[in-house]
């Protein structure tokens, strides 16, 4: 394009490198989660260490929520919710990540040494 100078190429190259490295740094699997906290309405929070791979089932008012635990991460495998929201939350691996099953009135959250906020709102 007319009017461009070498400085433009330099700035854009540096900017692309910056953006690329930002993506790389921010989205490399960080992990750090050490335990899964299952909070269910009417029950005390239950803590499961994220050490040995296993599958657990949590009984709720609408059925059974199946949770897969692996070293450093956990996820909801199956839950009674019709929209699959709990399953679609995917692997919970950063401290603070959470999955929710409304039909079973259940919140799954992984925690680590660094205390996190519950959620972000705009």
């Amino acid at each position, binding site marked *: *394009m007319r*009017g*461009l*100078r*070498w*400085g*433009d*190429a*330099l*700035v*854009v190259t540096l*900017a*692309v490198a*910056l*953006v690329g490295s*930002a*993506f790389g740094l*921010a*989205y490399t699997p960080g992990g750090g989660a050490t335990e899964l906290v299952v909070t269910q309405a009417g029950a005390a929070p239950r803590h499961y260490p994220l050490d040995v791979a296993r599958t657990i089932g949590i009984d709720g008012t609408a059925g059974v929520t199946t949770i897969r635990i692996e070293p450093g991460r956990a996820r909801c495998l199956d839950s009674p919710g019709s929209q699959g929201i709990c399953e679609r939350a995917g692997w919970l691996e*950063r*401290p*603070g990540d959470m999955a929710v099953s409304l039909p079973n009135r259940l919140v799954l959250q992984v925690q680590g040494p*660094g205390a*996190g*906020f519950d959620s*972000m709102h*705009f």
Partner: protein
Amino acid sequence: MATDSATCDRRIAALAALAIGLQVIEAAIPSPVPGIKPGLANVITLVALLTLGWRAAVAVTLLRVVGASLLLGTLLSPGFWLSLAGALAALLMLTPLWRLYPGHISAVGLGVAAALAHTAGQFLLAWGLIIPHPQLPLLLPPLLLAALITGVLTGILTNSVLSDPRIQRHVRNPPTARTG
């Protein structure tokens, strides 16, 4: 000299009015992602910088931030401080770079640098004071990518504005106020 100063003031006022108008219009456009918008008012900052000089660009930018926040009702709200932080960070980035114009850099390079600085400044304020969440940096890469894209677009727009003959007159014969 007094006439020149008054002329410069009128140009600053006109550019600030344009920038406020652009920012208000932009605020009315719904954005799918919070924090991402075209930043068309930055075109005006760049035009002010490259035609009237650094002081004029600072004046236009501050007038724009305060004026737009008055119209949008966000004065002194978090949005206002974010806007101000971004604007000041962009000006800080432009301060050393704009001297390279037009020999070594065009408005595209300036626009990209300013947009990234704008986003970074906003982010640091947001992260440091408003939402000090340890996972907030996860939002930064897409915001920076958006800044890169919008920076290129505003830069291209600025280049085409500056190549307009009516603007070129001011670029080639800058007023004496160009001392910044």
